């Protein structure tokens, strides 16, 4: 088939870049003394390293029909909107979502590999530049905020977005957008 190559695993340098990015993020969590996030990003980094090394291909929920995934997502979204945020039980629910998602995406099976042509490379470059610039801008705001001992002199994204989530409507919009994004990504995984 035109534009497709064999089912080869990506070279190690492609894999390592994600691990490097997560290590940098882990360092930033340590820098801002966010110990919960440090634990989370440590776990993420370890899972990525394990995933890059292991040949284990447990496909636990891989064949679950997408309509059941959507139905589960609707029920979970409702719970996320109705239940009070920022407590232990809610944290357990959100952690359960992570375990469910990993079960859905862990499988290593590839169908075909699209050639990394110039169009893809340009797109990669542009999105990476945009993401890196945003990350630097946010990091700069974080550092300056610490230096000026004020969250509002150079506000971070969290400081700007969090007040919008105080109302029930704000929470509902956030949950719907977050879940739609997750489902959209899951659909892409199912299409491969």
């Amino acid at each position: 088939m035109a534009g497709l190559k064999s089912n080869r695993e990506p070279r190690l340098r492609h894999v390592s870049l994600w691990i490097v990015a997560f290590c940098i993020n882990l360092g930033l969590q340590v820098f801002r003394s966010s110990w919960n996030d440090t634990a989370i990003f440590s776990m993420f980094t370890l899972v990525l390293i394990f995933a890059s090394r292991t040949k284990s291909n447990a496909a636990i929920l891989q064949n679950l029909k997408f309509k059941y995934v959507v139905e589960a997502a609707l029920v979970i979204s409702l719970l996320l909107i109705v239940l009070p945020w920022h407590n232990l039980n809610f944290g357990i629910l959100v952690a359960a979502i992570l375990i469910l998602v990993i079960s859905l995406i862990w499988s290593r099976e590839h169908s075909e590999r699209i050639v990394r042509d110039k169009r893809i490379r340009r797109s990669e470059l542009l999105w990476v530049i945009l993401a890196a610039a945003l990350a630097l801008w946010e990091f700069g705001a974080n550092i300056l905020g610490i230096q000026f001992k004020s969250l509002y002199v150079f506000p971070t994204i969290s400081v700007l977005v969090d007040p919008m989530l105080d109302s029930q409507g704000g929470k509902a919009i956030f949950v719907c957008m977050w879940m739609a994004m997750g489902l959209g990504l899951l659909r892409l995984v199912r299409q491969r």
Partner: protein
Amino acid sequence: MSTYWITVIGYLSFLVLGFGLWFFTRKDRSRKVASLHELLSRIIRYRVTRLAIFFSWWWFGWHFMVNVIGR
């Protein structure tokens, strides 16, 4: 103009640039740059990339829904 608004305008600029990049490359509109959908479809085939993307998505939700953000 205060530093608060300079910072906010910076974020909004990134939002507009991201929207523009998505809009002008969507559905094969651009012959030179692949759409975000094409890009994600390609990179999500690799397990580490797939996990990294979903970890980022999940943490975004965790950060706002579970973490207590100082303000």
